[in-house]
């Protein structure tokens, strides 16, 4: 199993030239991050597979990116979102408790609260606190301005605190 530390050091690690190595290092971690984001195991698995295929097809280009794993994650997220849209679901992965295992450490209510956030907040929070990526890295990965990352992160955390409190009071 690939250590999470490896992907947290993604930009440096991912300069490896071999796609196979990239796949080995990143695939499972990207899957887990996506699962935490969308809360659906089967869809996350399928989306990461799809993203890895596309990454492979464009490896010559993608491997030069500052953060190839960010690109793969975005591809997977977009693909998953499209699939959900096709299934005519209005909310994206709004039931992460159905897909994300209960953590043995930490606060399960936090996961529940995370699952209730809008997807764009969720993805930023996961990349920040699961991958420990910087705001610049997240902006690069999601192809959004850094300011947007900041605002989403702030709003996401604020919402998370609020919803956790509400959940805790119930």
């Amino acid at each position, binding site marked *: 199993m690939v250590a999470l530390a490896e992907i947290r050091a993604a930009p440096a690690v991912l300069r490896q030239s071999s796609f196979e190595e990239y796949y080995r290092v990143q695939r*499972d971690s990207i899957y887990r991050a996506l699962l935490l984001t969308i809360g659906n195991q089967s869809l996350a698995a399928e989306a*990461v*597979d799809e993203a890895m295929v596309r990454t492979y097809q464009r490896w010559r*280009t993608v491997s030069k990116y500052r953060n190839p794993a960010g690109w793969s994650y975005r591809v997977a997220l977009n693909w998953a979102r499209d699939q959900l849209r096709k299934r005519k679901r*209005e909310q994206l992965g709004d039931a992460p408790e159905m897909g994300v295992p209960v953590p043995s450490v930490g606060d399960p209510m936090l996961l529940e609260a995370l699952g209730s956030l809008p997807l764009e907040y969720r993805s930023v929070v996961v990349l920040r606190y699961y991958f420990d990526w910087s705001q610049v890295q997240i902006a690069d990965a999601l192809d959004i301005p850094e300011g947007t990352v900041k605002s989403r992160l702030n709003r996401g955390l604020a919402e998370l605190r609020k919803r956790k409190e509400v959940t805790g009071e119930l």
Partner: protein
Amino acid sequence: MSFEDDLRATLDSAGRSAPAPPGDLRQVMKRGRRRRALAYAGSAFVVVVAVGALAVAIQSVTGGDPDVLAGDSATTTVPAVDEQRFQERSTEADGALDYVATTAAPSPTTAAAVAPDEATSTTVADTTTTTLAAPYSVVRRDEYESEDFPAADFYLNGRARRVVLTNPLAVVDLEERAFLEVSDAPFARATYGIVLPDGSLLAQELDALFGATLWRRSTDGRWSELPPVSDLPTLLAGYYGSDEGTVDLYFIESPFEEDPVFEDAGTIAIEYDYDNGTFSELWRRADLSGTRYSPNSTGEVILVEDQGVDPVYGPAYALLDAGTGAAPFGAEAHQPTAVFEDSGNPSIPDRRALRTPDHAAFITETEYVYIETNWEEGLLRSWVVGSTETSDVSNAAEVFELAASYPVDGYELFACRFGRYSVSGNAFVDLETGFVAEFYEDGYDPGPPFAAC
């Protein structure tokens, strides 16, 4: 433990607890190809419009010798193709049009013929022959190395280009310009070209695997390579440019709302500088779809507007000067999301915004926003006029009931009535100054943005 540490530990633990599914690389690749093939088979989609001095022919694999056809005036045979779908459209562009035909998926593109001169009377569907003339010749269908997708040898002016060729093949009418896309998917190769009124052709072969080449044929027939613009296979969706300007802007976007293959489907704005022969990318946004372009009344400035079909990201706006390619409202205009971004709310239906070319009013996740452009002063204004936190936005699409622009007492006024529940009002904006001339409200104080004006 701080809240953030708690969050980090929780995510770590949940992530560790999640068993990753089996992921043999070969199996993953196989599944991906299969999925893609199915997606393409289901997306029998052909866009065919042609204008301008474009002449391209695509011939089936049984066609003639490309070495003979390429580059010269020549007559060749384009075999009839079963189930071929095509459209034709004549233009006044010096008799230089054109037929383009494509087949529907799952049968890949097999034939398209465009005659650039007086031979345009020939149609592809009814005959097996057509006359092809220089500088365009034949694209020959062939089988690509992959098991799933066909390819084509693409000859332009005698220069062979091998591209993967799948649907869609598209040529889009753009005010006597034409745009051609030969799009691939599985191997990240695509070609697009823009035909200018003088008949010269800009084309780019996008090849993420082997490097992209952008090339241009000038009116004297010489080819020159241009810097790469993008690695995104795209389709030109709109063009705006001043007739006498030195820069044209081209907006490119994916033809698919839900592109089965290109997660990067989105919008690119590129400019072409006639004087310097340069072709550069202004900005791109990958996560937009359904982008529309609204030039102002004089065609000087463009409001680039996403329609908000994306339930997550919602609409976004950017302004560009059509004549110069500059961003009159600051560098941020190259990044539409930075100019304005609706962070969106999946629960809010699409197309909740009302707009005119100069104005728009819409709802973000937490705010009612009114955006207004003042072309003369080069201003882009946006105001937050209310908060959704205090009102029910479950039917937010109905919040904005009216947006209209009309003259009153010498003022060009823009009326925006917003509010359905706790919020309602009318804002009248003086378009000459960009200021709010009057505001009427029904029991709601719009707050500082309007008050300040």
